[in-house]
C-alpha cells in the first residue's frame, strides 16, 4: 500500500514540473539568503571577538554558510531535473541520478534543521564565553602598554558606549579591579600609598568607573569617581540616582543582542527548512510519476505518484535488508543454516530435456 498516492494526468505532470522548476529557483535564492545570514552572523561575532573568551561558537555561522552553498547547488540541480521532466526522453538522462539526489536532499534538509536548532541552543555556551571574555577585558583594561592587550581599553570603552552598559554584571565590577595603570599613579602621594597598602594584593582599588560608563540621559554632569560617597558631591544620593551611570551589565546587554540575532536567524532558517521540505516532496512525486509513465510506456497516459511505494514499516525493513546484504559480501560465513554446496553432497540430477531432432 503506497504512502500518499496521487494520480497525475499528463497536463498535471507538466504543471507540477513547471511549478517545481520555479520553486527550485526560489530555493536557490533562499540558499543565497542562508549564506548571507551565516556571513552576517560571522561578522557580528568577529566584531566582538575581544570580549569572547573562545571562538567555538563560530561553528554556527560556518554551518550556515556551507548549508547555504550546498542548498544553492542542490536546488540548481533540482531545477534542471524538473525542467527536463516535462519531456520523457530528456527525463531518461536523469533516471539514474534522481533517486540518489532525492535521498541526498532528504539528509541535507536534516542539516538545515540542525542549523536552525543550534541557533536556539547556543545561549549557554555564549553566556560562559562572554562572562570570561568580559572579565579578562576588564582585568587588562589598564594594560595599554602591553602587546596583545593594548586595544582592550578602547574596545571596552566603545562597547560600553555603544551597548549602553557598564561592567560585567553591573558597574560595581569596576570597584574590584585596578583599572588605572601604575604608570599614571603618583607613588609619592600619601593617599595613593595608603590605598595601595590597605589592599591585600597591593592593588589600587577605588569606587570609580571609567568615563564610558557615563549615561547620556543624566541631567547632571557625570559623576564617575567616588560614586558611593554621597558627601563628595553636592545634592547626590547614589542609592536613588538612576540616570548617572549605565545600570545594565555588558554581559546581559551582549547576551540579549546576540540571542536576538540568533533567534531571528533561527526563525528564518526554519521557514527555509519547511520550504525545502515542500520542494523535496514535490520532486519525489514528480520522480515517481515520471518513472511510472516510463513503465506504462505511453507518455500521455495517467500515472500514479507517491512518497513511498510500500508502507513505512515495509520500506524500512527492505532498506535494512539491503544494508545487511551489502555487509554480507565481505563476511566469512560460519552460519550452519546456510546451504553451501560441497563436493560430498549428492548432486541434484539435472532434468533431461528432449530436443526433437529434425530429420
Amino acid at each position, binding site marked *: 500500500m503506497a504512502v500518499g498516492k496521487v494520480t497525475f494526468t499528463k497536463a498535471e505532470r507538466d504543471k507540477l514540473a513547471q511549478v517545481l522548476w520555479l520553486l527550485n529557483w526560489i530555493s536557490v535564492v533562499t540558499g543565497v539568503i542562508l549564506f548571507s545570514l551565516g556571513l552576517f552572523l560571522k561578522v557580528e561575532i568577529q566584531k566582538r571577538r575581544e570580549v569572547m573568551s573562545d571562538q567555538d561558537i563560530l561553528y554556527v555561522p560556518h554551518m550556515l554558510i556551507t548549508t547555504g552553498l550546498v542548498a544553492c547547488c542542490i536546488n540548481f540541480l533540482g531545477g534542471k531535473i524538473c525542467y527536463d521532466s516535462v519531456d520523457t526522453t530528456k527525463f531518461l538522462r536523469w533516471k539514474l541520478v534522481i533517486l540518489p539526489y532525492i535521498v541526498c536532499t532528504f539528509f541535507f534538509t536534516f542539516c538545515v534543521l540542525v542549523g536552525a536548532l543550534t541557533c536556539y541552543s547556543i545561549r549557554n555556551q555564549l553566556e560562559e564565553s562572554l562572562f570570561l571574555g568580559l572579565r579578562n577585558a576588564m582585568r587588562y583594561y589598564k594594560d*595599554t*602598554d602591553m602587546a596583545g592587550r*593594548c586595544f582592550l*581599553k*578602547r574596545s571596552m*570603552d*566603545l562597547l560600553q*558606549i555603544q551597548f549602553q552598559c557598564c561592567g560585567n554584571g553591573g558597574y560595581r565590577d569596576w570597584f574590584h579591579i585596578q*583599572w*588605572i*595603570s601604575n*604608570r*599614571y*599613579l*603618583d607613588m609619592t*602621594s600619601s593617599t595613593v600609598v595608603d590605598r595601595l597598602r590597605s589592599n591585600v594584593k597591593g592593588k589600587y582599588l577605588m569606587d570609580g568607573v*571609567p*568615563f*564610558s560608563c*557615563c549615561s*547620556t*540621559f543624566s*541631567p*547632571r*554632569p*557625570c559623576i*564617575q569617581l567616588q560614586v558611593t560617597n554621597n558627601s563628595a*558631591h*553636592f*545634592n547626590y544620593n547614589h542609592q536613588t540616582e538612576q540616570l548617572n551611570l549605565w545600570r545594565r551589565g555588558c554581559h546581559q546587554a551582549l547576551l540579549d543582542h546576540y540571542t536576538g540575532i540568533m533567534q531571528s536567524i533561527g526563525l528564518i532558517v526554519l521557514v527555509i527548512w519547511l520550504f525545502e521540505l515542500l520542494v523535496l516532496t514535490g520532486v519525489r512525486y514528480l520522480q515517481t510519476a515520471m518513472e511510472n509513465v516510463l513503465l506504462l510506456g505511453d507518455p500521455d497516459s495517467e500515472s500514479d505518484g507517491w512518497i513511498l511505494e510500500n508502507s513505512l514499516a515495509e520500506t524500512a525493513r527492505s532498506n535494512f535488508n539491503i544494508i545487511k546484504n551489502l555487509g554480507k559480501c565481505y563476511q566469512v560465513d560460519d552460519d550452519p543454516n546456510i546451504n553451501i554446496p560441497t563436493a560430498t553432497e549428492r548432486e541434484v540430477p539435472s532434468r533431461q530435456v528432449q530436443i526433437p531432432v529434425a530429420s
Partner: protein
Amino acid sequence: MVVMKMKFPFEKRVKLAQGLWLLSWVATMAGAVTFTLGCVLKTELRRRAEVMDNTEIHVVPNTLMIVGVASLGINYFAGRICQDALDAGRFPRWKNFLKPYFAVSCFFTVLMLLSVIMSYAMKGNLESSLKIGLKNGIRFYKDTDTPGRCFQKQTMDRLQMQFQCCGNTDYTDWFEVQWISNRYLDFSCKDVKDRIKSNVDGRYLVDGVPFSCCNPSSPRPCIQYQLTNNSAHYNYEHQTEELNIFVVGCREALVSYYMGLMNTIGVGVLSVFLIQASVLVSLRYLQTAMEAVAGQENTEIETEGYLLEKGVKETIMEYLDPVFKFLMLNKVEEGEATDS
C-alpha cells in the same frame, strides 16, 4: 545656420530609435536613483537638525528630489516618442508636443547640474548655520530642566561621541561657557564662591570638558577636569597630550562629513546628468531626421538631422519671445512709440 548637422540613412535611424528606447529606460532608473539620493541627503541633514540654525542647505536635497521625479516623466515620454518615431503614421501627433517638451526637459537637466554646483557653493552657508547651532548647543548644555532645551545635553553628548569631536571650533569652547548647572553647585563651598566671584558675569567657568569629549583611544583614564593644570595630574602635560580628549571641533567634523556625502552624491548626479543629456540629444536628432521624412513617398531615404535649426542666440530669442509677450514688455514699447 544649422547647428551640428548629421546624415541619417534608414538603418542608422532605426538603430538610433532602438538605442534611444534602451537609453530612456536606463535614464528612468537613473532618475529614480537621483530621487533616492536626494531623500538620503535630506534624512541625514534632518538627523542633525538640532545643531543647525537654519534649513537653507535643504534646497540641495529638495532640488535633487524634484529633478528625480521630473526625469521619470521626461524619460517616459522619450521612450514613447521613440517608439512612435519609426512609424510615419504615428509620429506626426507628437509634433506640437515636442517644442515645449524640449524646453522643459532642458530646464530640468540644467537644474540637475545646478544642484551639484549648489552643493559645493553652499558649504559656507552650512558652516555658518552649524556655527550658530553648536554655539547654542554648548550654551544650553546645562539647561536640562528648561523645556525646549532639555535635550541639548543629550544631543551634544551623542554628537561629540559619534563624530569624535569636542566643542564648536575646538575643546576650549567649553572653558568659556558654564556647562555645569547651578543646581549641582554647592554654594556653601568656598571654592565655588571664589570662582563665581572671580568671573565678571557671575558664571562658574572651569577648564574642564564634559565626559563625551573623552577619547577612548587614550592609553590613560580620561582627564576631563583641570585640563590646563599640569601639576593636578601625575605625568601629564597638556601641550603634548594629543590622545586624551578629541582635538577636532564639531563644526569641522560635521562640515567634512556632509561635504564628503555631497561629493559622493555629486559624482552620481553628474553621471545621471550625462545620461539624461545624451537622451535629449538623441531624441532631438531622431525628431529632426524623422521630420524630414514626413510627406515623402519613400520612407527609407537618407535624411539630415540637426540640433538647432538656427543659431544658438536666435533659438533662445525664439523661446523667450512668448515669455516676453506674456510679461507685456512689447506693449509698453508700443505705447512709447505712439507717444513720441
